[in-house]
């Protein structure tokens, strides 16, 4: 059944050979970045394992987390093309998710450290 009230946006979603070449170049660049970050994480993990790192562990941990968020950003923005969608859509996907997940992380981790401390106090 052919409906004239639905606009087929996907019919417009084509690009030329020339644009395709540029896109592929961008894809391989992001591939290199993601591979280098993963390799870096593994090298750090092998050279400075958690038990030997001592007080440097906090920095290494936050380094891992920041690198992970960078990797995630490249995957979402380039591979999933979220960077090429309209700003309204980008915000609709990212803002609620980020607010919810930060709220969850904050509460669960804050409560967890209190619960751990309570266990320590009563189970000596």
């Amino acid at each position, binding site marked *: 059944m052919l409906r004239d009230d639905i606009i087929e946006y996907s019919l*417009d979603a084509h690009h030329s050979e020339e644009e395709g070449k540029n896109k592929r170049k961008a894809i391989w660049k992001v591939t290199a970045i993601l591979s280098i970050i993963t390799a870096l994480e593994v090298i750090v993990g092998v050279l400075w394992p958690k038990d030997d790192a001592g007080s440097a562990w906090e920095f290494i941990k936050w380094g891992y987390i920041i690198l992970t968020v960078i990797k995630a950003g490249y995957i979402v923005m380039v*591979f999933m093309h979220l960077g090429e969608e309209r700003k309204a*859509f980008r915000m609709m996907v990212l803002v609620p998710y980020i607010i919810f997940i930060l709220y969850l992380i904050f509460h669960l981790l804050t409560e*967890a450290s209190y619960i751990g401390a309570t266990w320590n106090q009563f189970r000596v």
Partner: protein
Amino acid sequence: MSTPASKQIDSATLWGGKVSPFSMGYGKIMMWFFLVSDALTFGGLLTSLGFAKFANPETAVEWPAAEKIFTHFPFTHEHLPLLYVALMTFILIVSSVTMVLAVEAGHRMDKKGVVKWLAFTVIGGIVFLGSQVWEWKTFIAGPDGDISTWADNATLAYNSYGPVQYADYFFFITGFHGFHVLTGVVFNIIILINAINGTYERRGHYEMVEKVGLYWHFIDLVWVFVFTFYYLV
């Protein structure tokens, strides 16, 4: 760029009705909504892993460091901490790249390219699944490396590496992710068959590859976080 979202349309027209204000097809928007909810599920799982870790009292069994457990590599007895998980991460990233190349070929209506890159994506997904089976087998076998002696095998009720919850989270998080990979491979095979049959060629666009591609990239995205929060941190 020639995606519908990059067309210049003034916002009064865009938000005035009769057109999608996002210039996107229904299916793609719905895939994104599904992925946001699925991301909340995985976010909840990984955050609760953090909860269990921080709530683990110092007086109880110590929470183990992953680089002490995942030290094995197939076909060798060398001590190679985290290297195999890193290789799995790399395999998944590469299969994500082949997927995005399939999507790109679809935008050029290049049927051959779509089929080629989708086939590579399916292979990458199957290799990853096989790696996960090996990883589970090695983990379950316990420190003695023998899965047939049930003395120190890791189960949901007993864990030879540390707290029981550590093994429970391993099985649940990597298992839930592995199930996503399995369904992703099935979807990829279906659209590969459709692409070979020329279904999308006749339809005039390869948006289905893009939609399934979103799901496949999401699986890679989740694994990036599992790798950091289960194995590294």
